[in-house]
């Protein structure tokens, strides 16, 4: 028998047993909650007269619906102008209060996008099983935690039982050889992976990202990569523990300390795949061949290099793919052959659980510094109150403001446009978020997924732009 993968190890160490119907029960260490996918789950608990199994496993924060404009934000929950959104955030507050669940409220400095605050607080630790009613829960896999997005029925199930009823997924390994070149970042890497394997490329599998280029990434970069594992269809993304992981985790509010830390760190050192582990599938990519990536269509697999042109659907052999591409070009208002860098923009969005951490803001500010925004609107939305505070301590807010960016309050914002931050029909945006689906950033809006470097370069160019040329 071969060795075990990292996924095998975490799965086996959380396996409670089998239910009467044969489904496996996996124990859940951490459950993150937000306002959008939890109200029906709490209602279900109440209707059935059930209580949360382990209250302290849960941590909640409002993020999807919160306004990011300071004037609206200062008044707190009651100040949310959109009544339906306000009720949803109030409902989260009430549910957390009623069930005794810790919540970082709307204007708590620790509030932010769930996938930013989990790691920030040390609520995300290596070897944990983590779930949240949000597909981008895969983000936490950067810490060698098995982190999965779940639906609302499962949110209720985890609240009531501290378990998920699952079948084990397959093991997939994506090896990133070589080193990323200057101006090419984690976001470009994961976009290149999805471009290669497609949005269903990892369906039914947990992806472990490994190889020299992954080892070189910061925790922020690894989170960006794992965040979009779901966009490749993966059930979760994982990166093994190394010193970079331990350095990040040490000293966080919920991280162990003293003797506990020593014991935990020794345990976490084992969180890597055995050398003879067997994977069901493997893909290799050479990081050194990658350029900044940009999406041109309405799926995260429809991506080209920034210095390429819009693809021609007529050149595709597969009739279904050609139809998808034609439809995408119609929606995006693009002509085949147009150089990507000649596409003018209406908006630039730097934010989201993919790219709103301090490193992302530093990279973007490095390009924005001393330049002026040439798009009608560009906004920077920090991933959490603590990211915002740190950026302000470093003076990044002023760099952005001087360049003409709007500096907003933390939240999901224009990644999914549930609040007022959005695209209007026909508007085109360079966005550091994760999905370019039709209407994702607003009804009729057109999204180009890019890295923070490319977003900042595009903001100051007014067109999609190659950050390597701006920085030069």
């Amino acid at each position, binding site marked *: 028998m071969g060795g075990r993968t990292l996924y095998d190890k975490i799965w086996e160490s959380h396996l*409670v047993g089998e239910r009467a*119907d044969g489904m496996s029960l996996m*124990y859940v260490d951490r459950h993150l909650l937000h306002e959008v996918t939890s109200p029906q789950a709490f209602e279900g608990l109440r209707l059935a007269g059930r209580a949360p199994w382990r209250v302290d496993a849960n941590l909640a924060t409002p993020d999807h619906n919160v306004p990011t404009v300071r004037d609206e934000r200062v008044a707190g929950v009651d100040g949310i102008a959109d009544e339906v959104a306000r009720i949803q955030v109030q409902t989260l507050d009430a549910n957390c209060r009623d069930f005794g669940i810790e919540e970082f409220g709307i204007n708590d400095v620790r509030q932010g996008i769930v996938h930013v605050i989990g790691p920030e607080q040390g609520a995300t*630790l290596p070897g944990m099983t983590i779930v949240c009613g949000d597909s981008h829960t895969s983000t936490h896999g950067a810490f060698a935690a098995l982190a999965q997005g779940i*639906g609302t*029925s499962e949110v209720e199930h985890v609240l009531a039982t501290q*378990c998920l009823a699952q079948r084990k997924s397959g093991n997939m390994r994506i090896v990133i050889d070589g080193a990323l070149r200057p101006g090419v970042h984690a976001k470009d890497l994961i976009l290149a992976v999805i471009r290669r394997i497609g949005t269903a490329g990892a*369906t039914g599998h947990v992806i472990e990202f490994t190889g020299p280029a992954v080892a070189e990434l910061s925790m922020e970069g690894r989170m960006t990569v794992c965040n979009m594992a779901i966009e490749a269809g993966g059930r979760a993304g994982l990166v093994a523990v190394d010193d970079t992981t331990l350095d990040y985790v040490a000293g966080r509010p919920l991280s162990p300390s003293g003797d506990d830390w020593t014991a935990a760190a020794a345990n976490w050192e084992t969180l890597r795949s055995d050398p003879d582990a067997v994977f069901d599938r493997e893909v290799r990519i050479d990081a050194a061949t990658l350029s900044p990536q940009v999406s041109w269509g309405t799926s995260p697999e429809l991506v080209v290099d920034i210095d390429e042109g819009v693809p021609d659907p007529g050149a595709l052999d597969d009739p279904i793919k050609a139809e998808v591409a034609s439809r995408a070009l119609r929606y995006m208002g693009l002509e085949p052959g147009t150089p990507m860098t000649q596409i003018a923009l209406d908006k630039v969005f730097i934010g989201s659980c993919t790219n709103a951490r301090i490193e992302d803001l530093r990279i973007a500010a490095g390009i924005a510094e001393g330049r002026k925004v040439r798009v009608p609107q560009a906004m920077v939305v920090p991933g959490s109150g603590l990211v915002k505070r740190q950026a302000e301590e470093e003076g990044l807010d002023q760099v952005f403001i001087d360049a003409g960016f709007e500096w907003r309050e933390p939240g999901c914002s224009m990644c999914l446009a*549930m609040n007022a931050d959005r695209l209007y029909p026909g508007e085109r945006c360079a966005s550091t978020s994760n999905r370019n689906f039709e209407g994702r950033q607003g009804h009729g809006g057109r999204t180009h997924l890019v890295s923070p470097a490319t977003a900042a370069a595009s903001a100051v160019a007014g067109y999609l732009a190659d950050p390597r040329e701006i920085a030069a």
Partner: protein
Amino acid sequence: MESFDIHRGLVAPMDRANVDTDQIIPKQFLKSIRRTGFGDNLFDAWRYLDEGDIGKTQNERQFNPDFVLNAARYQGASVLLARDNFGCGSSREHAVWALMEYGFRCVIAPSFADIFFTNSANNGLLLIVLDPGAVDALFERVASPGFELTVDLPSQRVTADDGTSWLFDIDAERKQRLLSGLDDIGLTLACAPAIREFEAQHRRRAPWVFQP
């Protein structure tokens, strides 16, 4: 959860690959704190010409005459025929609630996204995976008006009126749950002693997980 046994219904085609849950139910409807009220907004951005919002009733909307589900011949459809990777993207269970409230009991496609697959199972929406050739054949047949299918979960068979049929695979566990409509949480809570025992061991092995 709604149980599923044998269902006969009109088939509607959704001839696009990678239909994501943002299309199935757009974000503005996710502000609702209820489990119902999503059916009229299924495929909202494709189904209507104007932009929908919570509280806007169907009488105030402009239907898109070119959208397949708006065609007279597909009214009352309860079986959706789809392409690869149906339900990809966001984990929103609202997508399943919208499909079921609209009237779909079953979706047939060559593949589905993982989270959508689980969400469907948890609500009694039967997802049937058929090989791409069979799905192509069904897309050809659905071109004839009034094409219906009988979906027989106990015998794992989809049958057209001319007698042609296709067998499908399904996990024994999921099948049993769909047939019985049993409460998933109740099933797990029957294992409460095992969960407690695991938890106690886990707490000894990894105490840092349990820090408040």
